[in-house]
């Protein structure tokens, strides 16, 4: 980490233009300045709330659809074209199309939702498929209740897929959510701040906001994955 910062500092010194490449020191100074500015936390709240909403909606829908597809093959076949479309179409295209239909205010929530949905769906479905059939046979022989099957057989099988799926989905939710805001630049969003930084060539602002996004994204991911793992561990101990 320290060596990367040193390389960055050296590179900015060699380039010699704050417009092209600001130094890490300048970014830290600008970051401190941003935090002190009026409306900074409101901007964070605006983007965070929408991206989080998109993530949790995608998580919920992806899980429910995966359960449906895991239970009924027909549902999987019917869902396949939608999932493959959402996965393949570039984020920029979806954002531009979505902006025709809706206001820019909630664009990041929609885009995050659309990015998270197929990842969660695919991972949970893989988890469902990985369940040991022999364990299910055992449950049938002993007449095990559904709640016990869920806790002892299904959840342990789904756990690794759910955790890795959420990790990937969270990173993508932030990347795509902010990209959507950058295109639609809704008022009071991080995307709007990035947009104006680019427009007025405030390179230090651009880097400082990028650092803010990374901190938010990583913190959210670590916290969520920690809570998810705790929830799984609790179900194993209950």
């Amino acid at each position, binding site marked *: 980490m320290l060596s990367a910062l040193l390389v960055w500092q050296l590179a900015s010194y060699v380039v010699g233009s704050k417009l092209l490449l600001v130094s890490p020191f300048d970014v830290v100074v600008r970051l401190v300045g941003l935090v002190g500015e009026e409306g900074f936390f409101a901007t964070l709240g605006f983007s965070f709330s929408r991206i989080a909403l998109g993530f949790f909606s995608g998580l919920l829908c992806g899980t429910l659809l995966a359960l449906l597809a895991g239970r009924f093959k027909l549902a999987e076949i019917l869902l396949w074209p939608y999932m493959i479309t959402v996965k393949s179409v570039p984020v920029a295209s979806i954002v531009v199309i979505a902006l025709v239909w809706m206001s820019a205010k909630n664009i990041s929530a929609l885009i995050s939702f659309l990015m998270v949905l197929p990842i969660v769906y695919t991972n949970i479905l893989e988890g469902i498929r990985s369940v040991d059939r022999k364990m299910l046979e*055992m449950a049938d*022989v002993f007449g095990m209740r559904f709640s*016990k099957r869920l806790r*002892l057989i299904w959840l*342990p099988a789904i756990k690794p897929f759910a955790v890795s799926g959420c990790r990937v989905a969270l990173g993508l939710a932030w990347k795509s959510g902010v990209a959507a805001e950058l295109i639609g630049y809704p008022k009071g969003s991080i995307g709007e701040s990035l947009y104006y930084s680019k427009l007025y060539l405030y390179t230090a602002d651009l880097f400082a906001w990028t650092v803010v996004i990374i901190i938010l994204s990583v913190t959210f991911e670590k916290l969520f994955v920690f809570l998810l793992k705790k929830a799984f561990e609790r179900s*194993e101990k209950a």
Partner: protein
Amino acid sequence: MKDLTLTNISKSFGEKQVLCGFTHCFKGGSRTCIMGASGKGKTTLFNIILGIIKADSGIISGLPERISAVFQEDRLSEPFSAVANIKAVVPKSVSESEMLSCLAELGLQGSEHLPVSELSGGMRRRVAVARALLAESELIVLDEPFKGLDDAMREQVISVILSRTKGKTLIFATHDTRDPIALSAELLEL
């Protein structure tokens, strides 16, 4: 207790015929040991009795509603403890102290609350046996229940099976000729 009767049971997997017209009446409350070389159809027969696979032909009558089993594999949930694995299949009337007592009889005292993933192969086998013995059932099917156990432990498990299966129909498979004698079981060769 009803007799379990299997009449003309046949089963093939592709070209290979595993069971051909198997007929036998397992008397209610009796103990039967099924022996035979590997591939003779012991596990297939058990799977048919347990309802896991369907026979190609034949009739099964007198099958009780509640059956418990030790499968060829242990089939335990790895992240959970022995007690949690047993609790998942036994009725609420079976207290935790009864489970602990059965596990202790099988030499598992001190390991009852450890995740199954941390237990040795022999210990897991005994947890699977405890689960089958404590589950509410009229018929107990044990597919090589002594797999991975040394002689001393085998004797200990046999004595627990004898004391905890009184009045129940017991069908088990083994490769060791001492087992049917130790369990006073009728011998049936496939």
